C-alpha cells in the first residue's frame, strides 16, 4: 500500500532524533488519533542549519516527518514555509488516501516549530500562522453508509 519511497523513509528515517537547546520546537497531533510529530529546528542567520524529528505514528507519519525534514534542511525560513503537505506527498511519490492527514501533520509540525522559533526570538515571520489546535479536523473519513 506504500510507495518504495515511503517504505525507504520509514525503514531508514532521515534526521531522526532531537536537538538539545533547539532554536525552535513544535509538537502537533494527538494520541487520540494515533500520531504525534515533534520537530526540532536549529536556525542560524535565517537558515535552517539542522532539523530533527520524533514521531509517534504509523508508517506514513514517520515517512512524512522524515521527508519534511529533508525538504527544509539548509533552506531559508521563507523557503521552508513553502514546503506544504502536497510537496511532502509528491516527494514521497504519493500516499494512500487515508494517510493524507499524516502529510498535513508534517506541514503543521514544521510551522509549529517555526512559530516557536519566532516567539522565542521575538520576530515576526510573514505568512506564518499560529499552530492549530488539532490538525486532524480536516480529514475524518467515515465509511458508514
Amino acid at each position, binding site marked *: 500500500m*506504500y510507495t518504495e519511497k515511503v*517504505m525507504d523513509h*520509514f*525503514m531508514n*528515517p532521515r534526521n*531522526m532524533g*532531537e536537538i538539545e537547546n533547539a532554536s525552535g520546537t513544535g*509538537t502537533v497531533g494527538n*494520541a*487520540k*488519533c*494515533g*500520531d*504525534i*510529530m*515533534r520537530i526540532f529546528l536549529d536556525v542560524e542567520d535565517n537558515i535552517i542549519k539542522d532539523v530533527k524529528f*520524533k*514521531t*509517534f*505514528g*504509523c*508508517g*506514513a*507519519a*514517520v515517512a512524512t516527518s522524515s521527508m519534511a525534514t529533508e525538504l527544509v534542511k539548509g533552506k531559508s525560513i521563507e523557503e521552508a514555509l513553502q514546503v506544504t503537505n502536497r510537496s511532502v506527498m509528491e516527494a514521497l511519490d504519493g500516499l494512500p488516501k*487515508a*494517510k493524507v*492527514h499524516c502529510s498535513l501533520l508534517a506541514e503543521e509540525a514544521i510551522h509549529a516549530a517555526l512559530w516557536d522559533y519566532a516567539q522565542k526570538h521575538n520576530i515576526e515571520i510573514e505568512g506564518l500562522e499560529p499552530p492549530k489546535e488539532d490538525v*486532524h479536523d480536516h480529514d*475524518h*473519513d*467515515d*465509511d*458508514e453508509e
Partner: protein
Amino acid sequence: MDKAIYFDYAATTPTSKEVLEEMIPFFTQNFGNPSSVYSIAGKNKEAILKAREQVATAINAKDDEIFFTSGGTEADNWAIKGIAESYESKGKHIITSKIEHHAVLHTCEYLEKKGFQVTYLEVDEYGRISLQDLENAIREDTILISIMFANNEIGTIQSIKEIGRIAKEKGVIFHTDAVQALGSVHIDVKDMNIDLLSMSAHKLYGPKGVGALYIKKGVKIKAYIHGGAQEKRRRAGTENVPGIVGFGKAIELAYANREENTKKIIALRDKVVKGILENVPYSRLNGHPTERLPNNANISFDFIEGESLLIMLDMKGVCASSGSACTSGSLDPSHVLMAIGLPHETAHGSLRITLGDKNTEEDVDYLLEILPQIVQRLRDMSPLYEDFMKMNQ
C-alpha cells in the same frame, strides 16, 4: 524475505489439505445443482446433508437447525435483523455489548435507525460483561440478547452458559457470534441455552465464503434471502456445495482433535505472552488472563503505534495484526481496546498474535528475538517515550 511466519490465524486460516481434498470433486465431477432431479445432483444433496450433520454434531444441535450462509457476517446480520423483524410486535429492544464484531454492532446501529432501541453493555478491564448488568438491562420489550462467544481481538471468552440461563429465565432470545470460538472451544447449544449461533468456516481451516446460522427449533425468524426453496425457504440461492462440504469436514476435524490441538497451542501462546511481558518493558496483556481463546495473545506497548510495528515485523517476515486506527482505515483505535479502558495511545500500540497449526517453538523464539528490538527502535523515534523518559530521569 525468505522467512514468512504467519501469526494471524484469527484473521483467517489456510484451508487444510484434507478439507480441500473433500471439496475438489464438487467443483468438477459432482457439479450438479442439488435442486435438480437427476441422480448426479442427488449426490450433492447427500453431501449437503452430511455437512449439515457434521456441523450440527459439533455444537450438539439437530441437523435441521443448521442453515448454511455465505459466512459469519451474513449469519450475524440474519440472526439480528431476522429476530428484530419477527418479534417487533413483542418489543423493539435489543441488548448487546460494546465489544461485538462490527457485523453485530453495525447491524444494531442499522436497526436503531429503524426505530429499535439497543443497549450496549459495558465490559470490565478483561473484556467480560457483568451478568448483573445484563439482568438489569432486560426489559419487558427486550426481544434479543446478542453477546459474542469469544472476542476476535482480545480473545476473552464470555460466560455463555450463564448468559443463556438468564435469557431463558427471562424469555428472551439469545444469539451468540461464535465465529472466533468455533473449533477451539467446547460449544453445546442445548446445554448453554443458545437460540442462535453464528459460524464461519475459514477460521477453522475451512474455505472462505461459507458459514452457518444455528436456529433453534421453534425460534421464529424471517427468510433472509428470497428466491428459492433452499435452506427451508429461509436462505434462497443455489448452495455453495464445495464450500459447504469443506465446512463440514473442517468442523469435524477441528472437534475430533480439539483437546490435543488446543494443548499445543496454549503452550505456544503462553510462551509468547510470557516472553514478551518479560522482555519488553511497559507492555501489558489485553483480555482475560485465563478465560481466553487458546490461540490469542494481545499485547499493548506504550509509546508506539501499531501499524508501524506491523510493518517492521512484516519486513522481518512476521505477519500479525493490530488494533491501531491506521490498520482499520479510521482514525480511532479498536473499539474493543477502548471498551476495556485502555488510553488512546496504548490502544494504538497493540499487537495481536494469533497462533495456528503451522506455528512452532522456533517461530515463537524468532518473534521473541526480533520484537524487543523493533519496539525499542520505534520507542527511540517516539516523542511520547522521550517525554516519559525525561519525566522519570
